[in-house]
């Protein structure tokens, strides 16, 4: 029986891998039911191909933009005119993650790192895959708010520990592991709303990690019940810096009308990174009404925050990271052109391992390719 199960798993893994390799060749066309306006079928296939080969497609597959009719999808690059083309080795993609005079001088070799996806909402395999990739690439990935499985410890120098409103699995040692600690105030896909991990996803492992009871729904409240002002926020940052003085502090917020004020408040509270998460970002599960309607898309939030930090004379001291709908390398470049230092990506990583952006993650059967948990 066990052998059969192993054989079955092997068969399907092999088939999926084969599919991810063959589909982008367009031998069978673009499947009609694949994709949507933001992640079009073409973009999904192009991402599979890039994940398989490390190269952009050469068969005409659109790999830079989706079909949403706005934001990054309608921004295009101005022709460089007479500017000479630089040799690849002359281009430095690295960015520092701490622009303040004090604190660890961390940097990443290209302008993005992996966003928070929590244990419980994603599978352990996917989590470890992300951690390994982060280590290999010399970048970081965030735990999300579901705790810090011990299997991640070997990669701890590349793992950002997220401290979110539910405080699930936030312990002194997991805070001390981290080179970067990330306060999650809000999430772009459900801004102003807390999280809700469905009861059937709270298995014994998840319950242990989150220090809760099995098969009981878990709510992350909104907002931090201890933070109602910038002063409270500063106390939070001070607390973190006491627990782990060597860590950089990132503050993840959503994109309300006053996102610029929130950013400056975070700067004065001592954050090294202000991470703004736009409304069209990913999630394990969220009300559709929240994803589409609350808070502004990241394309509009970046220039607003950037310009405000410039006008306040602090732009060079804080790193501005953008997320929430960053799908492609082109999106990253556009986000930087609009004023970000770099981006935080998550959904694209899921697509790289076979996600179809089908949105069935919360159906209780688990993800058909094992990315999110059932």
């Amino acid at each position, binding site marked *: 029986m066990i052998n059969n199960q192993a*054989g*079955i798993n092997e068969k*399907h893994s092999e*088939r*999926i891998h084969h*599919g991810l390799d063959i*589909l982008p060749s367009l*031998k*069978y066309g673009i*499947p*009609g*039911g*694949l994709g949507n*306006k*933001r992640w079009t079928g073409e973009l999904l296939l192009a991402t599979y191909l890039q994940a398989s080969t490390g190269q952009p497609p050469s068969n005409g597959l659109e790999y830079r933009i989706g079909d*949403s*009719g*706005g934001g990054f999808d309608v*921004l*295009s690059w101005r022709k460089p005119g007479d500017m000479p083309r630089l040799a690849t080795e002359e281009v430095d993609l690295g960015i520092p993650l701490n622009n303040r005079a004090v604190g660890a001088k961390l940097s990443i070799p290209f302008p993005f790192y992996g966003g928070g996806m929590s244990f419980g909402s994603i599978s352990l395999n996917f989590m470890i895959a992300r951690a390994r990739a982060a280590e290999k690439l010399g970048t970081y990935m965030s735990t999300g708010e579901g705790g810090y499985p011990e299997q991640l410890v070997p990669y701890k120098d590349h793992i950002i520990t997220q401290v979110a409103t539910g405080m699930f699995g936030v312990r002194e040692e997991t805070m001390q592991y981290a080179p970067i600690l990330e306060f999650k105030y809000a999430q772009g*896909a459900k*801004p*102003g*709303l*807390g999280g809700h991990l469905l009861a059937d996803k709270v298995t014994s492992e998840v319950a242990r990690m989150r220090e809760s009871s099995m098969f009981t729904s878990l*709510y992350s409240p909104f*907002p*931090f*019940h201890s933070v109602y*002002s910038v002063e409270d926020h500063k106390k939070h940052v001070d607390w973190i810096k006491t627990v782990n003085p060597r860590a950089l502090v990132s503050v993840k*917020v959503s994109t309300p*009308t*006053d996102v610029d004020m929130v950013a400056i408040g975070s700067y004065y509270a001592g954050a090294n990174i202000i991470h703004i998460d736009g*409304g*069209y*970002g990913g*999630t394990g599960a969220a*009300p*559709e*009404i*929240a994803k*589409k*309607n*609350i*808070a*502004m*898309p990241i394309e*509009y939030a970046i*220039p607003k925050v950037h310009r405000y930090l410039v006008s306040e004379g602090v732009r060079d001291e804080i790193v501005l990271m953008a997320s929430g*709908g960053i799908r492609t390398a082109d999106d990253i470049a556009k986000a930087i052109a*609009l004023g970000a230092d770099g981006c935080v990506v998550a*959904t694209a990583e899921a697509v790289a391992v076979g996600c*179809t952006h089908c*949105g*069935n*993650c*919360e*159906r209780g*059967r688990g993800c058909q*390719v094992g990315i999110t948990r059932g």
Partner: protein
Amino acid sequence: MVSGTGVEGPAYERFHIEAKSADHVYNVPNKFDVHAKRLRLAAMLIHETIRYRFNRDIVLSRPCIYGVFSGRLGGFKPIKQRCVGCMRCVQEYPHIMQVNYGKKYRELGDLHWTPESVFTILYESSTGKIPVKGMGYKGSFSGEGWDGIWTDMSEIVRPTRDGVFGREYISTSADIGSKPFFLDFSSSDDVTGKKIRLLQSSLPIMLQPPESSKLDIGIAVKQSASKLGIYHMSRSPLNAYEEDPWYVPIVDKANLGKLNLDRAPMIEVDLFTSNRGLIGELRQRYPSKLISVRLKIDEAAEDEACRLFNDGADVIHLCADYHGFDYSKTHSHISHGLRRVHTRLVNEGIRDRITLIASGGITRAEHVPKAIICGADLVGLDTTLLIALQSEFKGETRDRTDCRLASRKIEVAWGAQRLINLMASWHDQLIEILSAMGMRDVRRLRGDVGRSMTDEELREQAFEGIDKLS
């Protein structure tokens, strides 16, 4: 007595809408159409049988975790209605499997009603739940009208998380009617001048089934409205409505004599088919009754609204067509006209003395808070009710006088529950929007455009200095 408190009075009861499952009774098309190329499927089975050495379990293990191929004939006769479009079968067997959006699904709706919005209403009315999905937003970046508006959220300074599961109460009730700025009292403390005349609705929503709706739909609307504590309106002279405290008759010259208006909590005068003279006539006959006036939104709507206030209207019901576009030469979205009328009434200093209802094209839960932000106190639902009750599209339903949604025969109790479910879902979604802003009362949202962002404004600001491609 409120138990244990020693305080007289009814125990506190939090407003709650009881949703109960009310499944579709008419077939709903499958969203996805899954199809296997049979010859290739047979060849694959032979190939896998040899490759996996006749190990039945491995050979017959199928890629679909939703059981689409779990029938006796597997992929040769897929159980299509189970397909959720996860695409794993296509990933595994791209040479065999095809999954497309179903033809009948794609044909659902009309120019305004997309298949996705029809499905959303069907889901909400059958379950009463908020639609929740995994992964991020999948649609267009923005769009005309409501789709070009985002609502605000508050990062930290707000009450503790309320939302649907919250501990703190968020009020969704709306007042309908008129308020004087101040009250005049006689020496014996009686109010002598204009009195406050207000009705209260538990949701900022009124139900107004299109005129072509059949009798059973009318009764389902009536039953759901009284259960929900909200008002419904129609011009139907149904006897069943006579004792109904939630029924607002729509009157014009043609049906005036056929309706018994004595018990109506409010009367709506239809200016589409009558002239303003009728308002005075009714005011004379019913001096203390609330009078609402149904007004089309066009270039003259602001002026007309001010005149109606002076004529004694308590409520103005601003109407666009069923697609949410107004009757001006430019056929603008209702949000623009609504904002114009609201702003004009504010500037005239009379906004708080009158109620604005907006209707036409309110087809998704998010349209309610957005219409309120644009200046409405309440919204009216029309074609949405018919979609919830599984009416059939027979063409474009834009023109208010030509509803091409054919109502089907329904059980009244089923219909009422579907509408209650729809309102339960929309109530919870309204709460999600309000709680994200840290707002405890939907009435505070009225006209508060500062709690919203429009695509036009944000684009101007954010992309300033970027050349536009011609």
